[in-house]
């Protein structure tokens, strides 16, 4: 009875069912060992593995359970629950050294088709909603609820689609490489091994898509700036120029985000069409660098997101026995057009070439090459001060993806490698997915980065290598 009362009082019912299931055991272990923290950690791992084991055994024959309905004619709710756990392989000064990923997640999603007015039906109106609830053991069981999607879409006329609200925007041709996709990303999620879905952050905005014979046009307006989620030393250590090297919790940077006012709205435009089997696109973006590429106040360690315009082109289609893609972009760093301000990122040119091939027998391979050049480099060099870190003018980056499916495509072994011959750093992401059945999926993977220098993209995360597991139940 007491337990039931507690349960009812607990606002996070779902969490209760997952973490507290093992509560009794936790208390016992904690009392006997008198090492609260270690206990919580290990007995949770233990109880989770027991839970997972039981679940696997029980559900080997479970039929697909496709969500549940709210009421007779109500919307269908689908989603998943999962547990992610990543053991950290390096030691540094982040909050924890044992693990850098340990969380439970519940995702619920639904799609509504308003029909109370015939106009909604005529316009093909739909509401997409998707919410995530997490318990993050990394931050001592911190709970969080977030709308991943909450938007309204409609097509008032045959040549126009509108979508307003929280949504994920994606375009461009790269595989984990982005030139013209300047929408916010969560690189912390990426580096600790959360599902790929979480690399893309949702934005609050409006997208209008216009269709015609000559060209299709996407216009996106994002009223409020949303930055990339980057390493801040709490969970992932990184290169902090203020600390003169790799920083963890000792990092004391402040990131100044553009305030919410009409002048700071972001705009993105894409024109695209196909020529036979080839897809061509032109892009324009006006907004801000998504990472803090400027010093606002060096004394007080404040960084900011400078203004950015980007212009780009891409082409994708069949070639060389596979799919070939090419993309380029010109980044105009508007607050440092000449490149002579040492405190703000210079303008850049980026170019990418890639090919992916299907080699048969469920084996596919993809390679990409990315070239980046900092423009007005001489001006930047002249402006540098003696204590400044010097960033290279050129960067070359290669990627390799290998995917092989086994056991009637229920087992996927994948490898993704980033390697930069100019920065002498790299990042390897091996993964193994196993569809235990239609509801349960087990993922094992690793995030292994290294580098000659501490200030390069992958070199800085060298101490955050991890091996992770994810068990997911979809319903």
């Amino acid at each position: 009875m007491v337990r039931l009362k507690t349960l009812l009082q607990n606002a996070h019912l779902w969490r209760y069912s997952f973490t507290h299931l093992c509560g009794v055991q936790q208390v016992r272990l904690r009392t006997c060992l008198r090492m609260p923290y270690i206990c919580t950690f290990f007995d949770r791992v233990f109880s989770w593995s027991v839970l997972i084991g039981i679940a696997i055994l029980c559900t080997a024959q479970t039929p697909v359970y496709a969500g549940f309905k709210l009421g007779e004619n109500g919307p269908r709710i689908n989603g998943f629950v999962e547990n992610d756990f990543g053991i950290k392989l390096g030691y540094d000064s982040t909050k924890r050294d044992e693990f850098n990923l340990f969380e439970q997640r519940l995702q619920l999603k639904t799609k509504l088709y308003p029909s109370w007015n015939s106009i909604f039906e005529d316009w093909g109106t739909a509401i997409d909603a998707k919410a995530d609830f997490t318990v993050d053991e990394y931050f001592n069981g911190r709970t969080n609820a977030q709308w991943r999607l909450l938007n309204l879409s409609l097509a008032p006329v045959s040549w126009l689609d509108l979508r307003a609200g929280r949504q994920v925007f994606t375009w461009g041709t790269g595989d984990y490489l982005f030139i013209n996709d300047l929408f916010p990303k969560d690189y912390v999620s990426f580096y600790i091994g959360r599902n790929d879905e979480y690399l893309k952050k949702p934005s609050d905005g409006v997208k209008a898509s216009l269709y015609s014979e000559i060209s299709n046009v996407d216009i996106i307006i994002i009223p409020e700036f949303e930055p990339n989620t980057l390493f801040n030393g709490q969970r992932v250590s990184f290169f902090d120029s203020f600390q003169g090297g790799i920083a963890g919790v000792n990092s004391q940077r402040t990131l100044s985000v553009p305030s919410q006012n009409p002048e700071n709205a972001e705009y993105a435009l894409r024109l695209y069409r196909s020529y036979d089997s080839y897809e061509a696109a032109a892009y324009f973006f006006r907004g801000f660098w998504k990472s803090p590429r400027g010093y606002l106040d060096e004394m007080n360690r404040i960084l900011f997101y400078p203004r950015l315009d980007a212009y780009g082109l891409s082409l994708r289609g069949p070639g060389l026995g596979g799919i070939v893609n090419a993309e380029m972009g010109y980044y105009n760093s508007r607050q440092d057009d000449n490149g002579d301000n040492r405190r703000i990122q210079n303008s850049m040119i980026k170019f990418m070439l890639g090919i992916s091939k299907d080699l048969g027998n469920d084996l596919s391979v993809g390679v990409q090459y990315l070239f980046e050049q900092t423009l007005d480099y001489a001006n930047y060099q002249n402006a540098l001060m003696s204590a400044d870190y010097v960033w290279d003018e050129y960067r070359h980056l290669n990627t390799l993806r290998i995917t092989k499916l086994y056991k009637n495509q229920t087992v996927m072994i994948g490898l993704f490698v980033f390697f930069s011959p100019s920065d002498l750093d790299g990042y390897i992401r091996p993964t193994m997915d196993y569809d235990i059945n239609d509801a349960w999926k087990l993922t094992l993977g690793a995030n292994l980065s290294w580098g000659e220098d501490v200030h390069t993209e992958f070199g800085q995360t060298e101490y955050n290598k991890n091996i992770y597991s994810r068990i997911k139940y979809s319903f």
Partner: protein
Amino acid sequence: MKKNIFLGMLICFSLIIFLGLTRTVSAEESLEEIITKANNTAYYGGNDGRAKVKMTITDNQGRKRVREFTILRFDIEDGKEQKYYVYFNKPVDVQDMVYMVWKYIDKDDDRWMYLPALDLVRRIAASDKRSSFVGSNFVYEDISGRGLTLDTHELVSSEGDMYKIKNTPKKADEVEFSYFEIYINKESYLPVKAEYYDKKGKLYKVITALEVKDIQGHPTVVKSQAKDLLTNSKTVIDFSNIEYDLGIDDGVFTERYLRRPPRKWLD
């Protein structure tokens, strides 16, 4: 007289040759006719079509996996180019994903995959049409058809109500079978069975039409099974909600509708 005999012989000879020739020609024509008609019946019914598909994959230990999706098809020309739109419902893990194919005869198909969680439209390399479709015992070619010009065809028998046609690949190294035999119903021209032989000449895979119905005048397979005799696994497809000539707009088969599934046609 001699002249007449000679002339008579010439006429007879020419007739024999002529008749003989015409017979071979007509035989070839009819074989081509059979396979063309069968191909059109199996894959090009109506100008467009829709079906809800439930795929039950059973492995050698009896474990079942279920895939549910809706297929939309649009024919540009019978026996030639087609477009397919496949919208996944189950398993939930791949819910709302869309797989789209523009099928060509003389070049590789164009294939796209839409991943809703990332709002990502991915282009897929499509050279291997003999790989499994969504982990089932059916391969891509079983779903969208195999190009007729890829094989040489031979009428093995036409006994009873079936034509039995042996198909030998012209490029043997591109496929896993040495040949396959197909049984075609003489009346409806619907292929009802296909037997695949491996490189050693051993039968290893059988696809059977378990149930056929007449839908809007088109003989239609509503239940089909692919059985792998080597691994002892099988896949059964149940088709429902089948409809031909819905008047699906060609524009549905574009990036626009990958991002915004066309409910009008899918439901």
